[in-house]
């Protein structure tokens, strides 16, 4: 229950445009990081370690679908750092002149099929997503995980029988955890993060279907120094190690 409500609040924050970003309790000491929903756990860990080693700096995290964050940035959300689950959304922010630095690739992620614990619908692979009696979910095609999932489905050459297109990957995962969906294509790291609550079914394809995560500092940020430090930390050996611990692959 807690999980779903927490996720729902993320969705709500996305939907309402997250108006609270403007009021910084301590503008010098805080860095507002806008990050893809699939980075929820790993960026929590990264922020904890960063704060422990940079006294007086507070990392404030705002998670949503990368495409939602891109829209908010283009709309003037004064964030310091943008970490996207693909390179396209970062490129669009750069093209709009809203980035202050060069985008850097920092991780790679693949896909997996998440099924409720125990796999009650006996899903064995991506071909099972064509079974019309199953409740199948994907991310909406406008968000990176949805785009990637559609690529995998097209590589697999199947006609998926989809019942819902969720606004972000964690909202999708939550519905699998609750047992309301029989199968959903999510990031490999998401099933790892929810291990025990969902089971993972591998997607075996002839072509590797992965996405590259990119990070960039933002022009509208109130704390450019803090932003630069945090990006360097994500790219550092320590950052790589934490990303690896959560199942992300080096780019």
């Amino acid at each position, binding site marked *: 229950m807690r999980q779903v*409500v927490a996720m729902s609040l993320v969705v709500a924050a996305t939907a309402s445009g997250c108006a609270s970003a403007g009021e910084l309790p301590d503008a010098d000491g805080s860095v507002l990081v806008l990050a893809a929903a699939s980075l929820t756990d790993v960026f929590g860990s990264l922020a904890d370690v960063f704060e422990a080693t940079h006294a007086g700096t507070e990392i404030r995290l705002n998670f949503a679908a990368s*495409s939602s964050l891109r829209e908010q940035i283009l709309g003037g959300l004064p964030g310091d750092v943008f970490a996207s689950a693909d390179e396209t959304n970062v490129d669009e922010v750069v093209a709009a002149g809203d980035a202050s630095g060069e985008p850097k690739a920092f991780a790679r992620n693949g896909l997996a099929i998440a099924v409720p614990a125990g796999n009650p619908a006996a899903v064995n692979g991506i071909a099972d997503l064509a079974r019309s009696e199953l409740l199948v979910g994907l991310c909406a095609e406008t968000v990176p995980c949805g785009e990637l999932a559609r690529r995998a489905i097209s590589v697999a050459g199947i006609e998926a029988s989809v019942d819902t297109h969720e606004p972000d990957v964690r909202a999708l995962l939550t*519905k699998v955890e609750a047992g309301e969906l029989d199968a959903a294509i999510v990031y490999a790291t998401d099933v790892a993060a929810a291990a025990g609550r969902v089971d993972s079914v591998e997607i075996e394809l002839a072509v590797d279907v992965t996405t590259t995560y990119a990070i960039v500092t933002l022009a509208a940020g109130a704390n450019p120094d803090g932003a630069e430090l945090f990006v360097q930390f994500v790219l550092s050996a320590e950052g790589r190690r934490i990303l690896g611990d959560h199942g992300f692959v080096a780019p």
Partner: protein
Amino acid sequence: MNAPGRRHRRGALPIGVAGLAGIGVALVAVPLVAVVWRVPWSRLAAVLGDEVVVDALRLSLATSAGAAVISLVIGVPLALVVARTEIPGRSLIRAIVTLPVILPPVVGGAALLYAFGRRGIVGGPLYEATGILLPFSGWGVVLANTFIAMPFMVLTVESALRGLDPRPEAAARTLGASRWTVIRRVTLPLLRPALVAGFVLSWARALGEFGATVTFAGNLQGSTQTMPLAVFVALESDRDAALAISLLLVVLSLAILVGLRDRWLRSW
């Protein structure tokens, strides 16, 4: 929502009041004007004729009207119970049925999932027994819409009941009318302005419902993707389409609020 026929001329208002009222109007009107301003008029017909938009419009009209009708059928008896009876826990009942007005809709959606989902405390046994599945279906959208919209019906009718002149009902009882006849022939006709107001409010609220719908019913074109969900998806891919659907929603909601209200109510 006041009782009808109570407008009095009280002379001009101080200039400051008018100024603040002007700010209030601007706060709501300026964003609406901005939507109209940015709408891609040259592409409007093409965008609105798109299959995604047509599907969303059809689904939105059907599910919101369904929710408004259910709100009427269930909400009016509920208002009567809350306003007229002395059953224990009445104020708690009133608070619970009003809660969806202030609860974040996504929390409502999550709660609905735990109640009526496939593993829900009601939805689980229902699914086992009948195979009926409410999430990810049009009926799920109606349920989510009703959950959010019904309180508007209950509150409107309840407040009207409290302001109702008790004499016509008392007279009818004295003349030998049964309880059921009094409600049908006296109470409900007297309540007509409030019934219309409650119906209009709950319908308009259902039409704009987003959070509970996406959380409980999911998002699939043609079966659960209502207009607000279509706007949310389009905002990130096709902004012209998002603006066009938004315009349609604004026009529809205004038509419901202004049209129905002015047609059925002289004063509200």
